[in-house]
């Protein structure tokens, strides 16, 4: 996809971050366009999650800049990221286990009554609405989320991102804990969000999932970017060799 005329939704330029002398991310640049899914691949510890946490506000990069819609963005914490309509679904799901689905969905952005109190009833009603769309089988609205299955928890995490009209969505291995049916549900959801014009960063281990879901794939190894390829130009073997050998496939490079 070299024919993008518009400005990218997100541009991470020359990002570096080190932890105690170890360069977790070493001068990496990636970008993301509206209605596009970009896969981030690499071994464990390749730096994918660390890179993306600079965008979600969980980490602050040592050097390099983030551009949103062509403008430089300052993201110091998760609150800043949310103000740019960046939503993240973490691998660990980042749910407060002791709270119910509605409280988790609205955590940090509670609906408030005119009196200034949390409007639990309206939150639950809204949660029921969005869950009816995302996962009609979801019924445990009053139970703490620790009583939910992996798939149900995942739908809470996804609902949280979708409800607030994210324009940029970061998904960190969204299907790692899910069964086949629930994985299918997430895949369909990604297609729908893409049609709505969201840009999605998808961190994945499963090369096949990347081939199915993504438009482009950026591969990282040892904190460095191996390369970014159009998924339709390469085979899964090409991507595998990028991950393992850290080399661009000859025909693309």
């Amino acid at each position: 996809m070299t024919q993008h005329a518009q400005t990218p939704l997100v541009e991470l330029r020359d990002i570096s971050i080190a932890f105690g002398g170890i360069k977790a991310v070493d001068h990496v640049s990636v970008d993301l366009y509206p209605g596009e899914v970009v896969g981030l691949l690499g071994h464990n510890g390749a730096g994918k999650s660390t890179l993306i946490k600079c965008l979600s506000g969980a980490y602050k990069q040592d050097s390099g800049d983030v551009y949103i819609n062509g403008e430089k963005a300052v993201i110091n914490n998760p609150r800043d990221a949310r103000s740019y309509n960046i939503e993240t679904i973490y691998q660990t799901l980042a749910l407060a286990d002791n709270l119910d689905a509605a409280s988790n969905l609205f955590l940090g952005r509670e609906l408030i009554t005119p009196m200034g109190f949390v409007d639990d009833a309206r939150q639950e009603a809204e949660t029921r609405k969005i869950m009816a769309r995302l996962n009609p089988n979801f019924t445990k609205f009053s139970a703490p989320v620790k009583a939910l299955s992996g798939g149900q928890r995942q739908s809470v995490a996804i609902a949280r991102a979708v409800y607030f009209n994210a324009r940029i969505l970061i998904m960190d291995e969204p299907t790692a804990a899910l069964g086949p049916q629930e994985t299918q549900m997430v895949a369909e959801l990604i297609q729908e969000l893409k049609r709505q014009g969201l840009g999605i960063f998808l961190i994945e281990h499963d090369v096949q999932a990347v081939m199915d879901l993504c438009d482009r794939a950026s591969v990282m190894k040892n904190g460095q970017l191996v390369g970014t390829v159009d998924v339709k130009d390469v085979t899964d073997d090409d991507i595998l060799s990028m991950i393992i050998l850290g080399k661009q496939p000859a025909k693309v490079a």
Partner: protein
Amino acid sequence: MSDPIPPSNGQTPPASPVAKFLRATEIDTRLLGMIGALVLIWIGFHLYGALVNGFGAFLTPRNLWNLSVQTSSIGIMATGMVLVIVTRHIDLSVGSVLGFTAMAMGLFQVRFLPEYLGLGSPLIWILTIVFGLILGALIGAFQGWLVAYRGIPAFIVTLGGLLVWRGAAFLVARGETISPVDERFSLLGGGPYGSIGATGTWIVGLIACAGIIYLLVSGRASRRSHMFALRPIWAEVVLGTLGCGLVIGTVLLFNAYPWPRGIVRQYAEANSIDVPETGLFISHGFAFPVLILITVGIIMTIVMTRTRFGRYVFAIGGNPEAAELSGINVRWVTVKIFAIMGMLAALAGVVASARLNSATNALGTLDELYVIAAAVIGGTSLAGGIGTIYGAILGALVMQSLKTGMVLIGFDAAIQQVVVGGVLVLAVYLDILYRRKSN
């Protein structure tokens, strides 16, 4: 909107009448368990007194009234300790902060303010309380800052605080006892004059009943407007009757405790009232410290269950990382929690020093352990994320009932310590069993 949604607990297995009753009324079984334990303790002490000592002193208006006053100071602090423990912290310094703030308030109202306002000025008590609460909040906020922004474990910060503030309480007055405190201030400690009397107690009781009915009605209306499952009408009626019955019972009980004869005579002379042959029956009614505890309990319950801040407290306790990633400023919330705890310790200091009519540097010694025990017995999980305000107040009542009961039946201090310690461990063990079962 869609059709009304069935109750979210989904499929209902065939249930016993008791389980059916509990589900319909949505009464917390933990709460029932605690009330059951409390009733057992009360009846147990009363019977022991009646059978062994020939006089059951526990279930008398006088003792239960005293019990309510004695519970206040620990109960006030226990509501704050819930927030601290829910967020996986601990505050060992509350007893010392109580002592230090009480001492500072004592000096402020006895040595400092009279110089500017004149002795007996009606402004003294209120200024003293404002000063004390701010001082307590600042102490708490400072400790919270050390925990949140400097990363020192709360156990260490407040263990240090336990020593620092106790020592500081001695230093500010070189170990003197400040007595007597301001006349109006001392009313906040209870006693015959520090109670609101029969009429006032009925007014408070009726307001409470109106509040209970309002909550039930408005809760039902809100559920209906969002098409959530409603409680059956009979369950609402049962809840309302139970709640109002409990309130009115308490009103009758506290009004049944008359002023002592000497105080009545003094009061009658001062107001030139003739005391009839049979004596004058003047009721105590609710004491001010109890009203303070109830008010704190209601405010803290609203804060914990209805405000964003309360929601963040629970979220941090459940998963601090998730809370941070959800955009919650975890550190700042932590500072606020410790500031509230410090302020409540100062408020407990008001009650405790007013009750003694003096500020001593030993005030509140060992209170931190009773406060933590009250919160934990009340169902606050040390693993974080779980706890209720009413539970902590009930826990304080359980602890105080044990202490009072053992004094009444003549157990000496050593046995009291053994029993209180054993009960704490047992209560937490029962709680763990309960949670395991309900999971």
